């Protein structure tokens, strides 16, 4: 359930930006979720609803955008896109792959008033 902490960080970042950009209410939050970020989206949505209560994010819609996962293949020495963490390398069939992209959760943008 680290999704709860992630949502608290989301609110944290939004509050910092509320001061910077002088907004009072958030209507929509767009998050990009890396394929390998280890985030359970259902848990994230649940945590979001809990964490935003009583903040200027309360009532905001949460849009989740999937970011593809990439990994470095130790066998062919290339970065490849993987649909699933345990897929073999689509170039050479190697199985020793180290994720190097799609591991982050980031706030892309906000719709605010």
């Amino acid at each position, binding site marked *: *359930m*680290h999704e*709860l*902490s*992630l949502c*608290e*960080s*989301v*609110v*944290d*970042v939004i*509050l*910092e*930006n*509320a*001061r910077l*950009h002088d*907004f*009072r*209410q958030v*209507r929509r939050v767009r*998050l990009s979720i890396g394929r*390998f*970020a*280890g985030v359970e989206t259902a848990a994230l949505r649940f945590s979001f609803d809990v*964490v935003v209560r*009583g*903040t*200027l*994010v*309360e*009532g905001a819609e949460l849009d989740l955008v999937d970011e593809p996962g990439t990994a470095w293949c*130790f066998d062919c020495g290339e970065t490849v896109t993987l649909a699933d*963490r*345990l897929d073999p390398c689509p170039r050479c069939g190697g*199985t*020793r792959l*180290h*994720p190097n992209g799609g591991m*982050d*959760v*980031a*706030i*892309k*943008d*906000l*719709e*605010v*008033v």
Partner: protein
Amino acid sequence: MCTTCGCGAGETRINGSAGHDHHAHDHGESHAHGHDHANDHAHTHDHTHGPSSGQVGDVLDYGAGPARAHAPGLSQARMIEIEQNILSKNNGLASTNRTRLRREGVLALNLLAGPGAGKTTLLVETLRRLGGALPAAVIEGDQETSNDAERIRATGVPAIQINTGKGCHLDAHMVGHALDHLSLTMGGLLFIENVGNLVCPAAFDLGERRRVTLLSVTEGEDKPLKYPDIFQDADLVLLTKADLLPHLDVDLALLRANVERIAPKAAVIELSTRSGGGMEQWLDWLRAERRSLLQELAGEAESRAASLRAAE
């Protein structure tokens, strides 16, 4: 809810002291209520500032309740691009911890594993074998109890217990505060035993130099495939309880292959605290890592000294 360290209200305790006293410095603006607001709305300032950071105070001050009292048609909706990693705050604090630990010349290790893999037992045995030859300190992370810190202290090594309450992992903020409570010795080892959990701790950099993931041989061959995140960034994977292998059906070659598949860069050591097998190899790894850190730091200091002399 604590927006700084991500723990539930009043949940995190360091060495049993509750109440989040470590947040006292975080406030600053929160009690000032410096904004101008009209007095035409009920605005009860009944929120508590126990474990929260200043930002929570600001949110409530902006009147973000259902009535939206503060922003009656103030402006039209607009888009703000942020593009910010939401772990950036943790990563920033981790980087502060890392700088501090390097300055102190301390080798910090983040020990990760599921509950019951033998993290504390390994630490106790490691400290016993080191016998004070290398200075060491331990930060223990658990949801509840200070049992583990007490087991460590019984070896004569200082230990700080962090209780995360409902939290499922340690984060850089908690570790930073634990560091305030420990006196570290140059050339020392700092073991940070994370909360027993094969999932969440993987995402939180604590400022460690090396990650060590433990997996007991009783846990099954496919754990690295099921929980890749906790293995993929490990510098060392320890296969613990190896003395039990004769009693188990586990396929050790397959287990090793799965570890190597998910963590191709990691060294792998099989060990048993009970039989002592593999313990010397682990201690050698620790000594080598410590030496490499100290040499690296000394090299940096020398090259800085050289540039300072050249600038005379």
